[in-house]
C-alpha cells in the first residue's frame, strides 16, 4: 500500500521541528537549511504556516528533467541516485511545489526519501500537522468538511437525570435542497 505524506496547514504552528529532525536524520547535524521539508510562513494577509513536502509524484517533474536519470520512483518514493547525480539542480527548479532543496554545504540536491517509510517529521510534529496516510484515503477529511458545509449543526440542551446535556444534530438547509 502506498502511503502519502500529507499536510494539514491549519494545524501547523511554524515551530520547524520537522526541519530540525530531518537534518539530523539525513546529515547528522542540526541545520534547518539542510532539510527536505520547509515551513513557509506568510503574515499577516494571508496568515499561513505551511510545511512544503515532497508529494512523491507518479509523474515526477524532477525525474523528467533529470538529464542523467538519477531520479527514479521506486516503491512509491522518488529516489535520488547519488552515483548518477551530476548536481545540476534542474530538479530543484522543476519541482512545481519547490519541495527539493539546495545547500552550499551539500554535494547533491536535498530530496525527501520518506526516511525509508517512517518519516521523522511525522513522528516528531507536536501538532499533528503532518500525516502519513494511505493514498486511497487522500482527501477524506476534505470530503467530510465538504459534507458538513451542507449542513448546519444545531444544538439542543436537555436534562437527563437532572444533569444538563447538549446534543448536536444536523439540519439540512432547505434552500439548498
Amino acid at each position: 500500500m502506498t502511503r502519502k505524506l500529507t499536510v494539514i496547514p491549519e494545524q501547523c504552528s511554524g515551530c520547524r521541528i520537522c526541519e530540525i529532525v530531518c537534518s539530523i536524520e539525513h546529515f547528522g547535524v542540526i541545520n534547518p537549511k539542510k532539510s527536505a521539508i520547509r515551513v513557509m510562513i506568510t503574515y499577516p494577509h494571508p496568515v499561513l504556516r505551511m510545511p512544503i513536502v515532497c508529494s512523491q509524484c507518479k509523474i515526477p517533474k524532477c525525474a523528467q528533467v533529470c538529464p542523467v536519470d538519477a531520479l527514479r520512483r521506486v516503491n512509491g518514493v522518488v529516489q535520488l541516485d547519488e552515483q548518477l547525480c551530476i548536481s545540476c539542480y534542474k530538479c530543484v527548479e522543476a519541482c512545481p511545489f519547490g519541495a527539493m532543496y539546495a545547500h552550499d554545504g551539500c554535494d547533491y540536491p536535498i530530496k525527501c526519501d520518506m526516511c525509508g517509510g517512517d518519516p521523522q517529521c511525522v513522528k516528531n510534529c507536536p501538532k499533528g500537522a503532518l500525516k502519513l496516510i494511505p493514498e486511497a484515503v487522500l482527501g477524506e477529511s476534505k470530503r467530510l468538511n465538504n459534507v458538513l458545509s451542507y449542513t448546519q449543526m444545531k444544538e439542543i440542551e436537555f436534562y437527563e437525570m437532572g444533569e444538563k446535556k447538549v446534543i448536536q444534530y444536523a439540519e439540512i438547509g432547505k434552500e439548498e435542497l
Partner: protein
Amino acid sequence: MRIKSGYFKKHLHVDLTHGTAERRDLSENFIEKYIGGRGFGAKMVWDNLKRHNFTIDPLGPENLLVIAPGPLTGVYLPSSGKCSFIAISPATGLYGDSSAGGGFGVELRQCGIDVLSIRGCAPALSVIFVDGVETKIIPMPELKGKTCLETEGLILDKLCTHAVHVAAIGVAGENLVKFACVNTDWSRNAGRTGIGAIMGSKNLKAIVVRGHEDLPVHDVKGQVVEADKAFKYLKEHKYFNLWQQEGLMNVIEYANEKGILPTHNFKDTVFTKHEQINGTKMLNHYKIGDSACFSCSMCCGNICLVKNGKYTGTVIEGPEYESCAMLGSNLGIDDFAAILSGCKLCDELGIDTISTGNIIGAVIEGYEQGVLTLDDLDGREISWGDEDSILELIQKIAMRQGIGDILADGSLRIIEKWPEMDKIILHVKGLEQSAYDSRAAMSMGLAYATSDIGAHHTRAWPVAKEMEEGQEWSDEELVDTVIYHQTLRPLFDMLGVCRLPWIELGLNEKRYENFYRYVTGKSVTLEELLMRSNDIYNLTRLINAHMGFSRKDDTLPYKVYSRPALTGPNAGKVLDRDKFEELLSLYYQKRGWDDNGLPTAETEKRFDD
C-alpha cells in the same frame, strides 16, 4: 576540560558611523565565563561603559547595542528560539535587555556568529543585512515612517527573497519613544527597556539575517536522546494541551482568581468582566491558528482574527497575557476585539504593550483625579474602557503628537512634568511595571525592586509560588526564592532558550546541564551554570551602581505601599514598607552587597579581563 563546540567563536561588530563590519574572534575564557545571550551583552556593555568613563547617552552613537543568542539557540530541544537585545536603556539610563522568540536568533547564529554588536549612527536610515559571511549596510531612506510589518514586507520585496529573518522598528523607534520595541519575525517583540529607540537613534531601521551554517553541537546523538526525553515529558504533562490551545492567555483567569490582575491602573486586582477577555473567549471567538517559536512544541502563540464588528479584519499573532491585561483590564476594556486592535496598533507602531498600557492607565486615572486637565489631554476626554480615545492616544504616543510627546518619554518625564503623577503611575527606576500586582506578594515586590532593568517580571516571578505555598515562608525562604529566580531565569536568557517549559510545565532545570554538556562537550553542573548567571547579576548591578543607582532606587511604586486594591481576594492589602526595607537588607546581605546595595570592589575585579 575545554569547550569543544557550541560556539562559532565569532563576534560581528558593525560600526554604522564608519560603515564598517568586522568579524572578531571570541576567546575561550569569554565564552566559558559569560555563556551567551545576556551574559555576552552585559560584559560588552560593561567594557563599553568603562571606555566612556561611565557617561553614556543611551540615545547617543556611543551606546553599544548587543544582539546575542546563546549556545543552545536553534538546537534541538524544547523552545530554543530566544535571542537577547542588550544596551544601556533609554527608559532607565541603566542596564537594559529584552529578549525575543521566533527564529531571528537561530538565523543569526547560522550566519556563523555568536553575537552581533552595533555602535555609531548611520548617515541615512539604513538596514544591516548579514548574508552569511557578508555584511552589508544598505541605506533605505524609503522605509522612513513605515510600520514594522510594512518594513518587513518591503525588505522582503527589495531583497527579492523570503528566506530571511528581520528585526525591525516602527515609527515609535524612529521617533525615539523610550519604550519602543524591536519587532522580529513579524510579531515577536523584544519589547521592554526601549531597545527600539536605540535602533532609531542609530538610524537603523532593521537588521536582516540569512545564514546556512550547521549549528555547532558536540554530540548530536546524545542531544537528540536528551531532547526527545524532554519533549516527551512536556507532551505528557496534564497542561500541555491547554498550553497549545490558549498559550499565556490562560493566565488571565488565574490572575483574576488570585487577585493579581491589573485592573483600572492597578486600582483593583480583579476584573468583573474577565470572562470577556480570557483564554476561553479567545478560543471560542477569535483564534484561527497557533504560532510557535523555533523548536517549540508548546506553541504559546495564538493567531487571532476579528470576524465582525468595527475591528473586522484585524489579524494578529497574539495577544498573550501581558498585552491582554495591560491593554485590557488595566484600561477597563472588556471588548476582546478592541484589545486585539490595540495590540495590533502597538505591533505596527513598534511600542511596548506593557509600558503603553501602564502609562495610558495612569493618564486615565490622572485625569479622573484632576491631576491632568482636559487641556493637558489636548481637549480629548479619556475614561476607562473608552476604546477610541485609547487607540488614538497609542497613536499619539508613537507619533509624539500633543500629550503623546511627553508620554513617549516614559514615567520619569511624566512625573517631572506632573509631580502628582508619582502617586499614580507604577514604575521602578523608570520602567513601567508589568502585569502582576505585588501588593499581596512581598516576594514579587522585592523582585520588582531589585530587578536590574526595572519593574519587569522577567528576572523573577515568585508571585505564583508565594500565593500557593508562601504563607508559611520565613524571611530567609522568601529572599532565597527571589534570588533563586533571579539566578535561574536569567540563565535561560544566557543559554538562549525560553523559560516557559520550566516555569509553566515544570521541565526540570537540571536537564539544561545535560543540554549544555552535549552542545559544548564540557561537563558542568547546574550549580556552576547558576554561579555564572549570578556573576552576571552582579555585573549588571555594578553597571547600575556606576550609573549612580543604589538602595535609594530599589523602591516600589507609591500605590504598592499606600493604595490597597478595592475588591477581590486581596482587597485591603498593601506591602509593609518597614518589612520591605528589612527584607531588602537581608537580600543585599545574601547577595554579598553592602547595605547600600553596592557590590564590593573585589566583585568588580572579576570582570576586568
